[in-house]
Protein backbone atom coordinates (compact mmCIF):
# COMPACT_ATOMS: atom_id res chain seq x y z
CA UNK A 1 0.00 0.00 0.00
CA UNK A 2 1.95 3.04 -1.18
CA UNK A 3 1.38 6.06 1.02
CA UNK A 4 0.72 9.49 -0.46
CA UNK A 5 1.29 12.69 1.48
CA UNK A 6 -0.76 15.75 0.55
CA UNK A 7 0.63 19.06 1.75
CA UNK A 8 -1.85 21.91 1.98
CA UNK A 9 -1.01 25.56 1.45
CA UNK A 10 -0.75 26.14 5.21
CA UNK A 11 1.83 23.35 5.45
CA UNK A 12 -0.51 20.80 7.05
CA UNK A 13 0.05 17.26 5.83
CA UNK A 14 -2.38 14.46 5.29
CA UNK A 15 -1.14 10.92 4.72
CA UNK A 16 -3.32 8.44 2.88
CA UNK A 17 -2.78 4.76 2.18
CA UNK A 18 -3.25 4.44 -1.55
CA UNK A 19 -3.50 1.41 -3.76
CA UNK A 20 -0.94 0.66 -6.47
CA UNK A 21 -2.53 1.38 -9.84
CA UNK A 22 -4.82 4.15 -8.57
CA UNK A 23 -4.07 7.72 -9.53
CA UNK A 24 -3.03 10.37 -7.04
CA UNK A 25 -6.17 12.34 -7.98
CA UNK A 26 -8.52 9.40 -7.31
CA UNK A 27 -6.80 8.72 -4.00
CA UNK A 28 -7.32 12.34 -2.96
CA UNK A 29 -10.89 12.71 -4.16
CA UNK A 30 -12.14 9.45 -2.67
CA UNK A 31 -10.78 10.47 0.69
CA UNK A 32 -12.01 14.04 0.44
CA UNK A 33 -8.65 15.84 0.37
CA UNK A 34 -9.56 19.55 -0.04
CA UNK A 35 -8.08 21.36 -3.04
CA UNK A 36 -8.03 18.42 -5.45
CA UNK A 37 -11.28 18.42 -7.37
CA UNK A 38 -10.87 16.00 -10.27
CA UNK A 39 -13.99 17.16 -12.07
CA UNK A 40 -13.47 15.05 -15.17
CA UNK A 41 -12.67 11.88 -13.29
CA UNK A 42 -9.13 11.67 -14.62
CA UNK A 43 -9.75 12.35 -18.26
CA UNK A 44 -7.26 15.19 -18.71
CA UNK A 45 -10.17 17.49 -19.45
CA UNK A 46 -10.40 19.80 -16.47
CA UNK A 47 -6.98 20.37 -14.83
CA UNK A 48 -8.71 20.67 -11.45
CA UNK A 49 -6.35 17.99 -10.12
CA UNK A 50 -3.21 20.11 -10.52
CA UNK A 51 -0.45 19.51 -7.94
CA UNK A 52 3.22 20.34 -7.47
CA UNK A 53 5.24 17.19 -7.04
CA UNK A 54 7.71 17.48 -4.17
CA UNK A 55 11.28 18.04 -5.42
CA UNK A 56 12.41 14.77 -3.88
CA UNK A 57 9.98 12.86 -6.10
CA UNK A 58 9.86 14.97 -9.25
CA UNK A 59 12.45 12.92 -11.11
CA UNK A 60 10.85 9.60 -10.22
CA UNK A 61 7.39 10.79 -11.24
CA UNK A 62 8.66 12.21 -14.50
CA UNK A 63 7.40 14.94 -16.84
CA UNK A 64 3.93 15.29 -18.38
CA UNK A 65 3.24 14.12 -21.93
CA UNK A 66 2.31 16.61 -24.68
CA UNK A 67 -1.44 16.74 -24.09
CA UNK A 68 -1.01 17.16 -20.36
CA UNK A 69 1.66 19.76 -20.98
CA UNK A 70 -0.80 21.80 -23.09
CA UNK A 71 -3.44 21.54 -20.38
CA UNK A 72 -1.03 22.71 -17.71
CA UNK A 73 0.16 25.61 -19.84
CA UNK A 74 -3.32 26.89 -20.46
CA UNK A 75 -5.36 26.03 -17.45
CA UNK A 76 -3.06 26.48 -14.51
CA UNK A 77 -2.45 29.94 -13.13
CA UNK A 78 0.89 29.29 -11.43
CA UNK A 79 2.61 26.65 -13.52
CA UNK A 80 5.97 25.41 -12.27
CA UNK A 81 8.50 22.79 -13.37
CA UNK A 82 7.02 20.32 -10.92
CA UNK A 83 3.41 20.88 -12.03
CA UNK A 84 1.49 17.72 -12.90
CA UNK A 85 -2.10 16.68 -13.32
CA UNK A 86 -2.42 14.27 -10.45
CA UNK A 87 -4.89 12.09 -12.37
CA UNK A 88 -1.99 11.17 -14.63
CA UNK A 89 0.28 9.98 -11.81
CA UNK A 90 -0.28 6.31 -11.04
CA UNK A 91 0.74 5.02 -7.63
CA UNK A 92 3.32 2.26 -7.52
CA UNK A 93 5.10 0.63 -4.63
CA UNK A 94 8.21 2.49 -5.78
CA UNK A 95 6.47 5.79 -5.19
CA UNK A 96 5.69 4.98 -1.54
CA UNK A 97 5.74 8.21 0.45
CA UNK A 98 5.05 10.35 -2.64
CA UNK A 99 4.58 13.91 -1.51
CA UNK A 100 2.56 16.44 -3.48
CA UNK A 101 1.73 20.06 -2.73
CA UNK A 102 -1.75 21.40 -3.32
CA UNK A 103 -1.89 24.68 -5.24
CA UNK A 104 -3.56 27.82 -4.07
CA UNK A 105 -6.46 27.48 -6.52
CA UNK A 106 -7.81 25.09 -9.13
CA UNK A 107 -9.17 26.28 -12.49
Amino acid at each position, binding site marked *: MPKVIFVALDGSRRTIDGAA*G*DSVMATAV*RNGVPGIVGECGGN*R*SCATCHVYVDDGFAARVGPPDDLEDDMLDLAVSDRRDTSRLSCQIKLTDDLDGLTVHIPDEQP
Partner: protein
Amino acid sequence: MTALIVGASQAGVQLATSLRDHGYTAPIVLVGAEAHAPYQRPPLSKQFLSGAADLASLELRTAGFYAERGIDVIRGERVTHVALSGSGRRGAGIALTDGGRAISFDRLALTVGARPRRLDVPGADLEGVCYLRDIDDAARLRAHLTRAQEVVVVGGGFIGLEAAAVARAAGRTVTVVEAAGRLIPRSVAPMVSEFFRQAHTRRGTGVRLGSGVAAIQGWQGRVSGVRLLDGTLLTADLVVVGVGVVPRTELAEQLGLACDGGIVVDEYARTSEPSIVAAGDCTVLPHPLAGGGRVRLESMPNAIAQARVAAATLAGDPRPYTEVPWFWSDQYDLKLQIAGVAHGYDQIVVRGDPGAERFSVLYYRRGQLQAITAVNWPADYLAVRRALAGGTPLAPDRAAASDTP
Protein backbone atom coordinates in the same frame (compact mmCIF):
# COMPACT_ATOMS: atom_id res chain seq x y z
CA MET B 1 -33.74 18.87 9.85
CA THR B 2 -32.94 15.62 8.04
CA ALA B 3 -32.05 16.09 4.39
CA LEU B 4 -33.06 13.17 2.20
CA ILE B 5 -31.28 12.78 -1.12
CA VAL B 6 -32.81 10.21 -3.45
CA GLY B 7 -30.32 8.75 -5.94
CA ALA B 8 -26.75 7.97 -4.87
CA SER B 9 -24.60 8.68 -7.88
CA GLN B 10 -22.63 11.62 -9.27
CA ALA B 11 -25.20 14.28 -8.37
CA GLY B 12 -26.40 12.75 -5.09
CA VAL B 13 -22.92 12.25 -3.66
CA GLN B 14 -21.86 15.76 -4.65
CA LEU B 15 -25.01 17.25 -3.13
CA ALA B 16 -24.39 15.50 0.18
CA THR B 17 -20.73 16.52 0.21
CA SER B 18 -21.47 20.13 -0.69
CA LEU B 19 -24.20 20.36 1.97
CA ARG B 20 -21.56 19.50 4.57
CA ASP B 21 -19.17 22.01 3.00
CA HIS B 22 -21.89 24.64 3.53
CA GLY B 23 -21.89 23.84 7.22
CA TYR B 24 -25.10 21.82 7.21
CA THR B 25 -24.90 19.80 10.43
CA ALA B 26 -28.23 17.97 10.50
CA PRO B 27 -28.50 14.32 9.37
CA ILE B 28 -28.05 13.60 5.66
CA VAL B 29 -29.54 10.40 4.26
CA LEU B 30 -28.49 9.34 0.76
CA VAL B 31 -30.59 6.50 -0.66
CA GLY B 32 -29.55 4.62 -3.79
CA ALA B 33 -31.25 1.77 -5.60
CA GLU B 34 -27.97 0.23 -6.72
CA ALA B 35 -26.24 -2.34 -4.54
CA HIS B 36 -22.76 -0.94 -5.19
CA ALA B 37 -21.13 1.95 -3.41
CA PRO B 38 -21.56 5.10 -5.56
CA TYR B 39 -19.23 5.07 -8.57
CA GLN B 40 -18.35 7.01 -11.71
CA ARG B 41 -20.23 6.17 -14.89
CA PRO B 42 -18.06 7.67 -17.68
CA PRO B 43 -15.39 4.92 -17.52
CA LEU B 44 -18.07 2.23 -17.98
CA SER B 45 -17.92 2.67 -21.75
CA LYS B 46 -14.18 3.35 -21.73
CA GLN B 47 -11.55 2.02 -19.29
CA PHE B 48 -13.90 -0.35 -17.46
CA LEU B 49 -15.26 -1.91 -20.65
CA SER B 50 -11.79 -2.40 -22.09
CA GLY B 51 -10.64 -4.02 -18.86
CA ALA B 52 -8.18 -1.23 -17.99
CA ALA B 53 -10.09 -0.29 -14.82
CA ASP B 54 -11.92 -2.37 -12.21
CA LEU B 55 -14.93 -1.55 -10.06
CA ALA B 56 -12.89 -0.58 -7.01
CA SER B 57 -11.11 2.14 -8.98
CA LEU B 58 -14.44 3.71 -9.99
CA GLU B 59 -15.70 4.34 -6.47
CA LEU B 60 -16.55 8.01 -5.96
CA ARG B 61 -15.62 8.12 -2.26
CA THR B 62 -14.33 5.68 0.34
CA ALA B 63 -16.63 4.24 3.02
CA GLY B 64 -14.52 6.16 5.53
CA PHE B 65 -15.31 9.43 3.80
CA TYR B 66 -19.09 9.02 4.22
CA ALA B 67 -18.66 8.01 7.85
CA GLU B 68 -16.37 10.95 8.57
CA ARG B 69 -18.72 13.46 6.91
CA GLY B 70 -21.77 11.98 8.62
CA ILE B 71 -23.48 10.95 5.39
CA ASP B 72 -25.75 7.97 5.93
CA VAL B 73 -25.66 5.95 2.70
CA ILE B 74 -28.45 3.42 2.21
CA ARG B 75 -27.68 1.15 -0.72
CA GLY B 76 -29.81 -1.28 -2.66
CA GLU B 77 -33.13 0.33 -1.75
CA ARG B 78 -35.38 2.20 -4.13
CA VAL B 79 -37.65 4.98 -2.95
CA THR B 80 -41.07 4.00 -4.27
CA HIS B 81 -43.31 6.60 -2.63
CA VAL B 82 -42.74 10.11 -1.49
CA ALA B 83 -45.13 12.75 -0.18
CA LEU B 84 -44.95 16.10 1.53
CA SER B 85 -46.81 16.35 4.80
CA GLY B 86 -49.92 18.49 4.49
CA SER B 87 -49.18 20.32 7.70
CA GLY B 88 -46.02 21.32 9.47
CA ARG B 89 -42.84 22.74 7.97
CA ARG B 90 -42.79 23.47 4.29
CA GLY B 91 -40.84 20.84 2.39
CA ALA B 92 -41.08 18.18 5.10
CA GLY B 93 -42.50 14.78 4.30
CA ILE B 94 -41.95 11.07 4.22
CA ALA B 95 -40.47 8.55 1.78
CA LEU B 96 -40.97 4.80 1.60
CA THR B 97 -38.47 2.35 0.13
CA ASP B 98 -38.93 -1.07 -1.40
CA GLY B 99 -36.85 -2.35 1.51
CA GLY B 100 -39.74 -1.48 3.82
CA ARG B 101 -38.09 1.59 5.32
CA ALA B 102 -39.93 4.84 6.05
CA ILE B 103 -37.71 7.93 6.09
CA SER B 104 -39.07 11.25 7.30
CA PHE B 105 -37.32 14.29 6.00
CA ASP B 106 -37.34 18.06 6.37
CA ARG B 107 -35.57 18.72 3.08
CA LEU B 108 -35.77 16.72 -0.13
CA ALA B 109 -33.44 16.48 -3.11
CA LEU B 110 -34.06 14.35 -6.20
CA THR B 111 -30.93 13.13 -8.00
CA VAL B 112 -32.51 10.10 -9.61
CA GLY B 113 -30.81 10.32 -13.02
CA ALA B 114 -32.04 8.60 -16.13
CA ARG B 115 -32.62 5.09 -17.44
CA PRO B 116 -31.58 3.83 -20.87
CA ARG B 117 -34.27 3.98 -23.53
CA ARG B 118 -35.23 0.42 -24.47
CA LEU B 119 -35.28 -0.78 -28.03
CA ASP B 120 -38.87 -1.51 -28.90
CA VAL B 121 -38.59 -4.12 -31.66
CA PRO B 122 -39.23 -7.88 -31.82
CA GLY B 123 -36.36 -9.85 -30.31
CA ALA B 124 -35.12 -7.02 -28.10
CA ASP B 125 -35.19 -9.29 -25.05
CA LEU B 126 -32.92 -11.98 -26.53
CA GLU B 127 -29.80 -13.02 -24.64
CA GLY B 128 -26.91 -10.95 -25.97
CA VAL B 129 -28.78 -7.65 -26.31
CA CYS B 130 -27.00 -5.33 -23.90
CA TYR B 131 -27.52 -1.80 -22.59
CA LEU B 132 -24.96 0.37 -20.89
CA ARG B 133 -26.01 2.56 -18.00
CA ASP B 134 -24.91 1.02 -14.74
CA ILE B 135 -22.07 -1.14 -13.51
CA ASP B 136 -24.09 -4.34 -13.81
CA ASP B 137 -24.84 -3.54 -17.46
CA ALA B 138 -21.17 -2.84 -18.06
CA ALA B 139 -20.02 -6.05 -16.36
CA ARG B 140 -22.51 -8.07 -18.41
CA LEU B 141 -21.41 -6.38 -21.62
CA ARG B 142 -17.75 -6.90 -20.78
CA ALA B 143 -18.36 -10.62 -20.23
CA HIS B 144 -20.27 -10.92 -23.53
CA LEU B 145 -17.54 -9.03 -25.34
CA THR B 146 -14.88 -11.58 -24.39
CA ARG B 147 -16.83 -14.27 -26.27
CA ALA B 148 -18.41 -12.28 -29.10
CA GLN B 149 -17.13 -12.17 -32.67
CA GLU B 150 -19.57 -9.90 -34.45
CA VAL B 151 -20.92 -6.89 -32.65
CA VAL B 152 -23.71 -4.60 -33.83
CA VAL B 153 -24.06 -1.30 -32.00
CA VAL B 154 -27.50 0.27 -32.30
CA GLY B 155 -27.20 4.04 -31.92
CA GLY B 156 -24.39 6.33 -33.08
CA GLY B 157 -24.30 8.56 -30.02
CA PHE B 158 -21.41 8.91 -27.60
CA ILE B 159 -22.00 5.71 -25.66
CA GLY B 160 -22.56 3.63 -28.78
CA LEU B 161 -19.43 4.99 -30.45
CA GLU B 162 -17.29 4.49 -27.34
CA ALA B 163 -18.51 0.90 -26.98
CA ALA B 164 -17.86 0.33 -30.69
CA ALA B 165 -14.32 1.66 -30.32
CA VAL B 166 -13.58 -0.65 -27.37
CA ALA B 167 -15.00 -3.67 -29.20
CA ARG B 168 -13.08 -2.86 -32.37
CA ALA B 169 -9.83 -2.31 -30.45
CA ALA B 170 -10.38 -5.77 -28.96
CA GLY B 171 -10.39 -7.15 -32.50
CA ARG B 172 -14.12 -7.74 -32.99
CA THR B 173 -16.04 -7.14 -36.19
CA VAL B 174 -18.13 -4.09 -35.40
CA THR B 175 -20.96 -2.28 -37.19
CA VAL B 176 -22.66 0.86 -35.88
CA VAL B 177 -26.24 1.39 -37.01
CA GLU B 178 -27.64 4.91 -36.69
CA ALA B 179 -31.18 5.94 -37.64
CA ALA B 180 -30.29 9.58 -38.33
CA GLY B 181 -28.33 10.70 -41.36
CA ARG B 182 -25.19 11.34 -39.30
CA LEU B 183 -23.42 10.38 -36.08
CA ILE B 184 -23.97 12.26 -32.76
CA PRO B 185 -26.39 14.59 -34.57
CA ARG B 186 -27.61 16.52 -31.53
CA SER B 187 -24.21 17.52 -30.19
CA VAL B 188 -21.87 18.44 -33.04
CA ALA B 189 -21.79 20.05 -36.50
CA PRO B 190 -22.24 17.85 -39.59
CA MET B 191 -18.54 18.06 -40.46
CA VAL B 192 -17.62 16.66 -37.04
CA SER B 193 -20.14 13.84 -37.52
CA GLU B 194 -18.52 13.10 -40.86
CA PHE B 195 -15.06 13.16 -39.29
CA PHE B 196 -16.14 10.52 -36.77
CA ARG B 197 -17.74 8.40 -39.48
CA GLN B 198 -14.46 8.40 -41.39
CA ALA B 199 -12.34 7.87 -38.29
CA HIS B 200 -14.37 4.79 -37.32
CA THR B 201 -14.35 3.49 -40.89
CA ARG B 202 -10.57 3.92 -41.12
CA ARG B 203 -10.19 1.75 -38.05
CA GLY B 204 -12.33 -0.96 -39.55
CA THR B 205 -15.65 -0.26 -37.83
CA GLY B 206 -18.62 -0.32 -40.20
CA VAL B 207 -21.00 2.65 -39.98
CA ARG B 208 -24.52 2.55 -41.45
CA LEU B 209 -26.36 5.84 -41.36
CA GLY B 210 -30.08 6.34 -41.95
CA SER B 211 -30.64 2.73 -40.90
CA GLY B 212 -33.48 1.81 -38.59
CA VAL B 213 -33.67 -1.55 -36.84
CA ALA B 214 -36.70 -3.69 -37.72
CA ALA B 215 -35.99 -6.66 -35.45
CA ILE B 216 -33.35 -8.56 -33.55
CA GLN B 217 -33.10 -12.15 -34.71
CA GLY B 218 -32.18 -15.03 -32.51
CA TRP B 219 -31.46 -18.70 -32.36
CA GLN B 220 -32.16 -20.76 -29.24
CA GLY B 221 -32.88 -17.63 -27.28
CA ARG B 222 -29.62 -15.93 -28.22
CA VAL B 223 -28.97 -13.08 -30.63
CA SER B 224 -27.95 -14.11 -34.11
CA GLY B 225 -28.47 -10.95 -36.12
CA VAL B 226 -30.02 -7.54 -36.61
CA ARG B 227 -32.60 -7.01 -39.35
CA LEU B 228 -32.62 -3.44 -40.67
CA LEU B 229 -35.71 -1.63 -41.98
CA ASP B 230 -34.40 -1.90 -45.54
CA GLY B 231 -34.31 -5.69 -45.16
CA THR B 232 -30.54 -6.08 -44.72
CA LEU B 233 -29.51 -8.71 -42.17
CA LEU B 234 -26.34 -8.06 -40.16
CA THR B 235 -25.14 -11.19 -38.40
CA ALA B 236 -24.26 -10.58 -34.78
CA ASP B 237 -23.63 -12.48 -31.57
CA LEU B 238 -23.70 -9.31 -29.47
CA VAL B 239 -25.92 -6.24 -29.81
CA VAL B 240 -25.16 -3.09 -27.83
CA VAL B 241 -28.04 -0.63 -27.61
CA GLY B 242 -27.25 3.04 -27.00
CA VAL B 243 -30.32 4.95 -28.11
CA GLY B 244 -30.48 7.59 -25.43
CA VAL B 245 -31.90 7.89 -21.96
CA VAL B 246 -35.20 8.75 -20.35
CA PRO B 247 -35.07 10.90 -17.20
CA ARG B 248 -36.67 9.33 -14.15
CA THR B 249 -39.59 11.58 -13.28
CA GLU B 250 -41.89 9.15 -11.40
CA LEU B 251 -41.19 10.56 -7.93
CA ALA B 252 -41.46 14.13 -9.19
CA GLU B 253 -44.81 13.27 -10.73
CA GLN B 254 -46.01 11.76 -7.43
CA LEU B 255 -45.13 15.08 -5.83
CA GLY B 256 -46.93 17.02 -8.55
CA LEU B 257 -43.74 18.77 -9.71
CA ALA B 258 -43.61 20.25 -13.21
CA CYS B 259 -41.89 17.89 -15.67
CA ASP B 260 -41.12 18.52 -19.33
CA GLY B 261 -38.75 15.88 -20.64
CA GLY B 262 -37.14 15.93 -17.18
CA ILE B 263 -37.85 17.58 -13.84
CA VAL B 264 -38.11 21.32 -14.49
CA VAL B 265 -35.73 23.34 -12.30
CA ASP B 266 -34.65 26.97 -12.23
CA GLU B 267 -31.08 28.30 -12.08
CA TYR B 268 -31.06 27.63 -8.33
CA ALA B 269 -31.94 23.93 -8.91
CA ARG B 270 -35.39 24.51 -7.39
CA THR B 271 -38.29 22.50 -8.75
CA SER B 272 -41.77 23.96 -9.23
CA GLU B 273 -42.18 23.34 -5.47
CA PRO B 274 -39.28 25.59 -4.42
CA SER B 275 -38.56 23.72 -1.19
CA ILE B 276 -37.58 20.65 -3.24
CA VAL B 277 -34.40 20.69 -5.32
CA ALA B 278 -33.28 18.39 -8.12
CA ALA B 279 -29.97 17.97 -9.95
CA GLY B 280 -28.26 15.96 -12.65
CA ASP B 281 -29.54 13.90 -15.55
CA CYS B 282 -33.14 13.91 -14.25
CA THR B 283 -33.54 17.68 -14.73
CA VAL B 284 -34.14 20.22 -17.48
CA LEU B 285 -32.68 23.62 -16.72
CA PRO B 286 -32.67 27.10 -18.21
CA HIS B 287 -29.35 28.03 -19.82
CA PRO B 288 -28.27 31.30 -21.42
CA LEU B 289 -26.27 29.46 -24.10
CA ALA B 290 -29.43 27.58 -25.09
CA GLY B 291 -30.96 30.82 -26.36
CA GLY B 292 -33.31 31.26 -23.44
CA GLY B 293 -34.72 27.73 -23.66
CA ARG B 294 -34.32 24.79 -21.30
CA VAL B 295 -31.76 22.06 -21.85
CA ARG B 296 -31.14 18.64 -20.42
CA LEU B 297 -27.42 18.18 -19.96
CA GLU B 298 -26.49 14.54 -19.59
CA SER B 299 -23.01 14.98 -18.26
CA MET B 300 -20.92 14.49 -15.21
CA PRO B 301 -19.77 18.14 -15.00
CA ASN B 302 -23.40 19.25 -15.05
CA ALA B 303 -24.37 16.73 -12.39
CA ILE B 304 -21.60 18.07 -10.16
CA ALA B 305 -22.19 21.77 -10.83
CA GLN B 306 -25.94 21.51 -10.43
CA ALA B 307 -25.60 19.46 -7.25
CA ARG B 308 -23.43 22.22 -5.80
CA VAL B 309 -26.07 24.77 -6.68
CA ALA B 310 -28.81 22.59 -5.14
CA ALA B 311 -26.79 22.18 -1.94
CA ALA B 312 -26.29 25.94 -1.65
CA THR B 313 -30.02 26.47 -2.11
CA LEU B 314 -30.90 23.90 0.57
CA ALA B 315 -28.35 25.40 2.92
CA GLY B 316 -30.03 28.79 2.53
CA ASP B 317 -27.18 30.39 0.56
CA PRO B 318 -28.55 30.33 -3.00
CA ARG B 319 -26.16 30.95 -5.90
CA PRO B 320 -27.22 30.66 -9.53
CA TYR B 321 -25.91 28.05 -11.94
CA THR B 322 -23.22 29.59 -14.13
CA GLU B 323 -21.26 26.56 -15.34
CA VAL B 324 -20.48 26.46 -19.05
CA PRO B 325 -21.55 22.98 -20.16
CA TRP B 326 -18.66 20.72 -21.06
CA PHE B 327 -18.20 17.12 -22.00
CA TRP B 328 -15.70 14.68 -23.40
CA SER B 329 -15.67 11.40 -25.23
CA ASP B 330 -12.82 8.97 -25.88
CA GLN B 331 -12.91 6.79 -28.95
CA TYR B 332 -9.75 4.84 -29.81
CA ASP B 333 -6.95 7.40 -29.57
CA LEU B 334 -9.35 10.25 -30.33
CA LYS B 335 -10.13 12.61 -27.52
CA LEU B 336 -13.19 14.72 -28.20
CA GLN B 337 -13.88 17.68 -25.93
CA ILE B 338 -16.93 19.91 -26.07
CA ALA B 339 -17.69 23.16 -24.30
CA GLY B 340 -20.81 25.28 -24.67
CA VAL B 341 -24.02 24.38 -26.46
CA ALA B 342 -23.82 23.79 -30.22
CA HIS B 343 -27.47 24.62 -30.96
CA GLY B 344 -28.87 27.35 -33.15
CA TYR B 345 -25.49 28.44 -34.54
CA ASP B 346 -25.25 30.21 -37.90
CA GLN B 347 -21.50 30.03 -38.53
CA ILE B 348 -18.65 27.64 -37.82
CA VAL B 349 -14.89 28.16 -37.92
CA VAL B 350 -12.60 25.18 -38.38
CA ARG B 351 -9.07 25.27 -37.01
CA GLY B 352 -6.39 22.64 -37.52
CA ASP B 353 -6.56 19.64 -39.80
CA PRO B 354 -9.28 16.98 -39.59
CA GLY B 355 -7.15 14.80 -41.89
CA ALA B 356 -4.43 14.74 -39.24
CA GLU B 357 -7.06 13.98 -36.57
CA ARG B 358 -6.30 17.17 -34.71
CA PHE B 359 -8.73 20.05 -35.17
CA SER B 360 -11.39 22.15 -33.55
CA VAL B 361 -14.70 23.64 -34.62
CA LEU B 362 -16.00 26.87 -33.10
CA TYR B 363 -19.72 27.64 -33.27
CA TYR B 364 -21.09 31.17 -33.55
CA ARG B 365 -24.52 32.72 -33.42
CA ARG B 366 -24.69 36.25 -34.80
CA GLY B 367 -20.96 36.61 -34.33
CA GLN B 368 -21.14 35.41 -30.72
CA LEU B 369 -19.10 32.40 -29.69
CA GLN B 370 -21.41 29.58 -28.53
CA ALA B 371 -19.43 26.38 -28.33
CA ILE B 372 -16.42 24.35 -29.41
CA THR B 373 -15.76 20.76 -30.32
CA ALA B 374 -12.08 19.87 -30.26
CA VAL B 375 -10.47 16.61 -31.33
CA ASN B 376 -7.05 15.88 -29.82
CA TRP B 377 -6.62 19.58 -29.12
CA PRO B 378 -7.17 20.29 -25.44
CA ALA B 379 -5.49 23.68 -25.70
CA ASP B 380 -8.15 25.06 -28.05
CA TYR B 381 -10.90 23.49 -26.01
CA LEU B 382 -9.66 25.03 -22.78
CA ALA B 383 -9.13 28.45 -24.31
CA VAL B 384 -12.69 28.52 -25.61
CA ARG B 385 -14.13 27.15 -22.39
CA ARG B 386 -12.43 29.97 -20.55
CA ALA B 387 -13.63 32.54 -23.06
CA LEU B 388 -17.19 31.27 -22.65
CA ALA B 389 -16.95 31.27 -18.87
CA GLY B 390 -15.44 34.74 -18.76
CA GLY B 391 -17.70 36.16 -21.45
CA THR B 392 -14.62 37.13 -23.49
CA PRO B 393 -15.58 37.65 -27.11
CA LEU B 394 -13.52 35.76 -29.66
CA ALA B 395 -14.33 37.03 -33.13
CA PRO B 396 -14.74 34.47 -35.91
CA ASP B 397 -12.09 36.04 -38.16
CA ARG B 398 -9.52 36.03 -35.39
CA ALA B 399 -10.32 32.46 -34.48
CA ALA B 400 -9.82 31.38 -38.07
CA ALA B 401 -6.18 32.45 -37.96
CA SER B 402 -4.22 29.42 -36.84
CA ASP B 403 -1.88 31.34 -34.55
CA THR B 404 -4.68 32.51 -32.21
CA PRO B 405 -5.54 32.06 -29.41
